[in-house]
């Protein structure tokens, strides 16, 4: 590892790249999108139209597992980003990105199986205002996770072929913002939909 590259890394740290700030602004606008859907859910959550309410539908241990899996993936992504920024270790970056990808895919699989179960029991989004809002909120989060996974797959391929360069490192930072943000949104879904629904 030459001094030049290391000095370059330091430079990279000192000046926040504009792309990172730009992406942060996008994340904040995405937070507003989620806030609108959360508000909709909060307004509609008691409108069950004689159907099941939140407390009757969900299995709490299942949701806790989902939550811990997503949290773990947020942590492993942090490790990938750490090895990219401070140790320049391509192998470890790839390994942790892969672990993150698998955890994310597992989370998505669990979410899809929950949705399928709800729909097959006749509790789809047409059932009541509450379920429409539920599917919109959790489904939007799931779509974001799907997009994150596609993006992460592309990133893994890029790191595989190009290694840890200025460009790939910046992409790792940007996807990191997105991935940690999705975990934060899930905390609120976990709290407001599942926990408060079960109280």
């Amino acid at each position, binding site marked *: 590892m030459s001094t030049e590259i290391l000095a370059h890394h330091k430079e990279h740290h000192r000046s926040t790249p504009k792309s990172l700030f730009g992406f942060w602004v996008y994340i904040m606008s995405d937070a*507003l999108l989620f806030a609108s859907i959360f508000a909709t859910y909060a307004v509609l959550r008691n409108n069950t139209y004689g159907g099941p309410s939140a407390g009757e539908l969900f299995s709490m241990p299942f949701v806790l597992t989902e939550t811990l899996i997503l949290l773990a993936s947020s942590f492993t992504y942090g490790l990938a980003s750490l090895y990219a920024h401070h140790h320049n270790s391509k192998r470890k970056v790839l390994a942790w990105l892969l672990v993150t990808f698998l955890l994310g895919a597992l989370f998505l699989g669990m979410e899809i199986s929950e949705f399928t179960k709800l729909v097959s029991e006749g509790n789809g989004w047409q059932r009541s205002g509450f379920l429409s809002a539920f599917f919109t909120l959790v489904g939007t989060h799931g779509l974001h996770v799907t997009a994150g996974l596609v993006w992460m797959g592309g990133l893994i391929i890029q790191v595989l072929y190009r290694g840890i360069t200025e460009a790939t490192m910046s992409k790792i930072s940007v996807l990191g913002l997105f991935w940690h943000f999705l975990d934060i949104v899930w905390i609120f879904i976990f709290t407001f939909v599942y926990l408060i629904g079960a109280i």
Partner: protein
Amino acid sequence: MINDFKVIDEQYEAGRKALRSYVIGFVLSIILTLIPYFIVVKHLMVNQTAVFAVVGSALVQLLVQVVFFLHLHKKSKPHWNLIVFIFTILIVIILVAGSLWVMYNLNYNMTEVSPFNSNEGYIPE
């Protein structure tokens, strides 16, 4: 050569700090997930208190993840990231609290079977 080592040392030092930050964030987040979970599942509190406790731990966890995972506190000098973040929080609060407030009042005013003879504030033409 000595300079080389100095730069590498600094890199490793920064790496260790970052690792500590992620581990602390991860452990705190797990704790802040399990506490509200068991409060709800084991019915440790009465309804009203439980809601406050659960929402409280979500807000603390938001703070934990923003600090330890997103490292928001130590980015860009004029803190533009932070300013945008605070502005967003403000809008989110107005949006969510505002919707709930408006819709609650709407429901409250329309709970009776017929609004025409029960609502004092409503005078039909």
